[in-house]
């Protein structure tokens, strides 16, 4: 699949600064792109447009030539956010986070992914505030890797984690994405990380 942002522009509200000004980016499954730009440049905003959480003021976002909104069932473009604690419901047990994903009936993939991410059964009965940030982010990653995911957007997904956890998570993701031919757009504060994980670096400046 091919995900394409064509000359997208965006501002928050009506009076604000134009965060993105005619930005274009194309990513195909199989391709791993690292996005580098100074802070405040609209990296997260661009990912939100690519994922369909926001609509561009002008320009368009197309998946295989069709607007994202036309994909009514499962959205093949999934995003993992920088702050896992803000992207899960704090009042529901963690097992419910996993149920939000797109698994097949027998859920073989799900068991495998949980195993490779090191998600322990005892964590699933806990609430989000009762596990560490690294443990929580593993749930969010598993949730985004449902069966029909074709493009993954990763917004500083390991910034708040310790180095060892960061290494484990990226080792897993790289292997998983390669195997399943899932495309990646990753934003990170560490250019070295992106150089090691991505096949192409795009600079937005």
């Amino acid at each position, binding site marked *: 699949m091919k995900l394409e942002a064509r000359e997208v522009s965006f501002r928050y509200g009506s009076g604000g600064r134009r965060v993105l000004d005619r930005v274009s980016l194309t990513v195909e499954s199989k391709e791993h792109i690292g996005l580098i730009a*100074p*802070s*405040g440049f609209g990296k997260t905003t661009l990912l939100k447009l690519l994922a369909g959480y926001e609509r561009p003021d002008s320009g368009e976002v197309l998946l295989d030539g069709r607007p994202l909104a036309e994909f009514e069932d499962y959205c093949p473009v999934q995003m993992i956010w920088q702050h896992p604690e803000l992207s899960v419901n704090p009042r529901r047990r963690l097992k419910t986070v996993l149920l939000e994903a797109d698994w097949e009936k027998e859920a073989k993939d799900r068991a495998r992914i949980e195993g490779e991410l*090191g998600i322990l059964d005892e964590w699933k009965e806990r609430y989000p505030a009762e596990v*560490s*940030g*690294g443990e929580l982010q593993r749930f969010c990653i598993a949730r985004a890797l449902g069966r029909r995911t074709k493009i993954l957007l990763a917004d500083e997904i390991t*910034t*708040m*984690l*310790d*180095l*060892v*956890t*960061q*290494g*484990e998570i*990226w*080792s897993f993701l*790289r*292997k998983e994405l390669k195997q399943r031919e899932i495309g990646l757009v990753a934003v990170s*504060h*560490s*250019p*070295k*990380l992106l*150089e*090691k*994980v991505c096949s192409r670096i795009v600079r937005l400046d």
Partner: protein
Amino acid sequence: MEKEILRIERLSVSFSQYGRGLARRRLSAVEELSLSVYAGEIVAVVGSSGSGKSLLAHAVMGILPYNGRLEGRIWFNGEPLTQKRAAKLRGKELCLVPQNVSYLDPLMRVGEQVTGGRSSPSRRGKCKSVLAGYGLEAGVERKYPFQLSGGMIRRILISTAVMETPKLVIADEPTPGLHPEAAGRVMGHFKEIAKAGAGVLLITHDIELALLTADRVVVLYGGRMIEEAPASAFSDETKLSHPYTRALCRSMPKNWNPDGERLCDTGDILSYMRKEYGR
């Protein structure tokens, strides 16, 4: 040998916590930690979240929460550092660059916060020159915290520490949210502070950044010190002794192997540490 500015001996910090009903229990957060900081030196304290880094800073500053209990001994500049003495030296010889923006008073202009409320023409002048030295434009002292960006706030927080002539600066996670160049500049500021003769205790989880600046690195895990090593040891992991420190070293993205099956071979160090250290 330079003068020993800070000496911590077998420091433990624990908290009393109410469990079910009136049952009280003690929760140990820092255990038997010893370290020293010398004049002109930057010592980095690294460790993942929950390893007790910030508590170490707060224990030295004498600002632990009311239910915290401190054991062990702290010397500052050759004399025991009691809570009372810490309260007297705080903001003068002993300065904290706090972790986040919320330590600033949202209703007070930042200039007043940098001068510490003791406003005289000479202090205002010094404040202006300190702010200018950190690349903040004239007039910034009349702004309120909400009017400044994250990077500007960081520089304001550092300015509060260098208004005086501190002997010890403790910086608690001074760089998250900054892009690499800005973080590098902040580190440069701490180098200058050390060059001026102060000891700097740099608390961070960003090991790569710490290695660029620090002379020595202290690694904490689960409230305990697991290793102390010169920064240079991290370029050759055989010089590191603890398996977790070696795993940290391999986990730095610059050491990742993009062709390997895993980017970095850390075995199952995390489950090993969970077993050994109980968290």
